[in-house]
């Protein structure tokens, strides 16, 4: 039930409408609340010492900023080193380009079945649907991704894609989609079933696809982080490996990896390290018995170079995709991932999606925040997400031909302009302010609750009661110095 509601929420026109649908689903809210509570507790347990957290975070933040400061050079270095190692490098300006490049590689090798490790970039470029149109079947092998693929849904969290599914939901999906599978909601049994089914898929796959957590320019190495081993299988068993990454994921040196890795796994799932950390530096070498014969790396732009052009918004690209911002977000916790109708939900999605897709389509997302600051506080690379939300709100509201943000001014409203002009006048001129506060305190309570804005407020609250006299008037009578 829950998932049906969540899915229908994704089709509503804007965040407010989708959120309302999601909020009505008690089961969904319980699942997210429980999961987020667990993740917050586990993360907190990983950072018991504030000083150690501060210094590690400062290091991680500086590594990512250094990588961005030298991004063009590092990408060239990465390409050179990868090529020297035998990894073929491709550049894609758009999602469509990346899809075509990957499909081209697969078609050249006669691939009919592609086994996939978890990759959010492959979600971003909607690769599975594109490949299906070209008669290539893409099979998700991460357990969570496998579940949502069976359900024909999208991930609701970047780290735990099927967080919106109960074990009963999974049991039903398995029974309905896997031959001879009886209903069981025992998690161990479900996991064993997935192992059995996916082993066959791995054995039969013509190619494997993965994402990349960090690409190391110094050595031409792709670093992949995971717990299940499906990432290793996807990148080792089939004869061809295609890795796809956002071009911002490059770091300078191998020694940059340990602090980032530590921040990533502790922030994401509260683990000191994941079960597997995989450093891939080349295809199978002469004499080696396994590993793919070819490794291809696809570097995706899809708006990232545009984001890079703005010194403030560039911080968006420091992200290491740990998901801690969504785990700690009071809005995400209540509405779940599908309400964002975006590949990347939660706080990072609220700044990334409008910059990739444009403010015309995603301009409401920066407002889907109370600016509580929890995301910025836990971000392991100190991305000032709340400030970037505010910046994007401004970009959406103001027509500015010089703006580099796609869809700048798309949410412009003359009424809103006038409201803020009036607000400014009232608060900038002391006489106006004193008169306004005197008037409001005397007649404000007579305002009908049906007024726009006030009716939104009173849907769950009583009308605010204005005081009889404002403080600026009372201080005089109480003998305080006022100058």
């Amino acid at each position, binding site marked *: 039930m829950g998932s049906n509601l969540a899915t229908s929420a994704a089709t509503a026109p804007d*965040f*407010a409408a989708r*959120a309302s649908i999601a*909020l009505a689903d008690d089961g969904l*809210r319980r699942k997210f609340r429980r999961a987020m509570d667990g993740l917050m507790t586990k993360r907190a347990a990983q950072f018991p010492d504030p000083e150690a957290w501060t210094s590690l975070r400062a290091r991680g933040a500086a590594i990512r900023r250094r990588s961005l400061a030298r991004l063009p050079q590092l990408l060239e270095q990465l390409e050179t080193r990868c090529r020297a190692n035998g990894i073929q490098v491709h550049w894609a300006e758009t999602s469509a380009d990346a899809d075509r490049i990957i499909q081209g590689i697969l078609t050249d090798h006669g691939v009919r079945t592609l086994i996939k490790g978890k990759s959010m970039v492959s979600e971003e470029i909607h690769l599975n649907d594109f490949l299906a149109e070209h008669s290539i079947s893409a099979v998700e092998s991460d357990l969570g991704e496998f579940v949502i693929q069976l359900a024909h849904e999208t991930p609701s969290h970047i780290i735990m894609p099927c967080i919106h599914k109960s074990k009963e939901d999974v049991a039903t999906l398995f029974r309905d989609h896997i031959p001879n599978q009886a209903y069981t909601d025992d998690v161990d049994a479900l996991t064993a079933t997935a192992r059995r089914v996916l082993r066959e898929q791995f054995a039969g796959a013509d190619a494997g696809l993965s994402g990349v957590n960090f690409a190391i320019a110094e050595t031409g190495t792709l670093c992949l982080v995971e717990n299940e081993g499906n990432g290793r299988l996807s990148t080792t068993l089939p004869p061809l490996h295609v890795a796809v990454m956002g071009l911002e994921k490059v770091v300078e040196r191998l020694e940059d990896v340990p602090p980032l890795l530590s921040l990533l796994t502790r922030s994401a799932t509260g683990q000191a390290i994941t079960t597997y950390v995989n450093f891939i530096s080349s295809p199978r070498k002469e004499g080696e018995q396994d590993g793919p014969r070819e490794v291809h790396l696809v570097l995706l732009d899809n708006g990232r170079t545009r984001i890079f052009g703005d010194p403030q918004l560039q911080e968006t690209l420091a992200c290491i995709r740990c998901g801690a911002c969504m785990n700690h977000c*009071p*809005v995400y916790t*209540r509405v779940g991932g599908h309400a964002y109708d975006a590949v990347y939900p939660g706080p990072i999605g609220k700044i990334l999606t409008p910059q990739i897709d444009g403010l015309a389509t995603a301009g409401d997302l920066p*407002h*889907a*925040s*109370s*600016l*509580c*600051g*929890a995301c*910025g*506080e836990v971000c392991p690379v100190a991305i000032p997400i709340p*400030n970037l939300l*505010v910046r994007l709100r*401004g*970009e*959406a*509201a*103001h027509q500015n031909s010089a703006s580099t943000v796609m869809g700048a001014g798309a949410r412009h409203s003359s009424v*809103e302009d006038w409201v*803020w002009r009036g*607000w*400014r006048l009232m*608060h*900038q*001129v*002391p006489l106006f*302010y004193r008169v306004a*506060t005197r008037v409001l*305190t005397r007649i*404000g309570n007579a305002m009908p609750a049906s007024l726009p*804005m006030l009716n*939104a*407020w*009173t*849907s*769950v*609250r*009583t*009308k*605010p*009661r*204005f*005081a009889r006299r*404002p*403080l*600026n008037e*009372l*201080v005089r009578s*109480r003998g*305080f*110095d*006022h*100058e």
Partner: protein
Amino acid sequence: MIPIPEKPDTFYFFGTCLIDLFYPEAGLAGMELLRRQGIRVVFPSGQSCCGQPARNCGFAEEARAVARQQVQSFPKPWPIVVPSGSCAGMMREHYPELFAGEADEAEARAFAGRVYELTWFLVHVCKIALSDRGEPVRVTFHGSCHSQREMGVREEPRALLRDLANVTFVDLQRPAECCGFGGTFSVRLPAVSGAMVADKVADIAATGAAEVLSGDCGCLLNISGAMAKSGTPGRARHIAEFLMERCYGK
């Protein structure tokens, strides 16, 4: 971490627009509490709003104009005490970026560096000693997001409440979680905001406290309104008012 200044002879009080309109008693209580610590309190009459509402909606120019009025209204080098962590956070954290590249950037930065949150100032600068004269009561505290995350105020209000002999302080299950106010967020996304404040009210109710206190009037408007609408018993008010009443009988 905000450096702790010397206790001044005189300081400014910034009342905030929400206090002007909805909670003037909280402002008076804050000023009175400070006056009783032997400091002269000055309330500049040119003050109005910190500018946060416009800033948060992306109207930086309007926010800056109003912020400039505040900067100009507090010209002397005295500390500026604010009975709101949110407004204090706006001034301390965001004025420097709001004025970046402006002719008066240095002035705004100096102003920002003088801004303190009320309970923090009472604890660290005044080193206030409280003597409780009230009846036994059970209370809880909701700290605003910006008081915690921008002003670093977490333990201070709790320490003040724990100092009161007849007050039983019970913390919330989720003390760091947003109440769902968020200024215009509460009316742009009323359903989400409503779900958040409903959870906050339930958290407050679960403490069994007769009063929920806060250092921020935005949260108070939201929480008290939701408590009243849902028929949740209990009172919500500013911590300054509560401290004044307990220690000085108002």
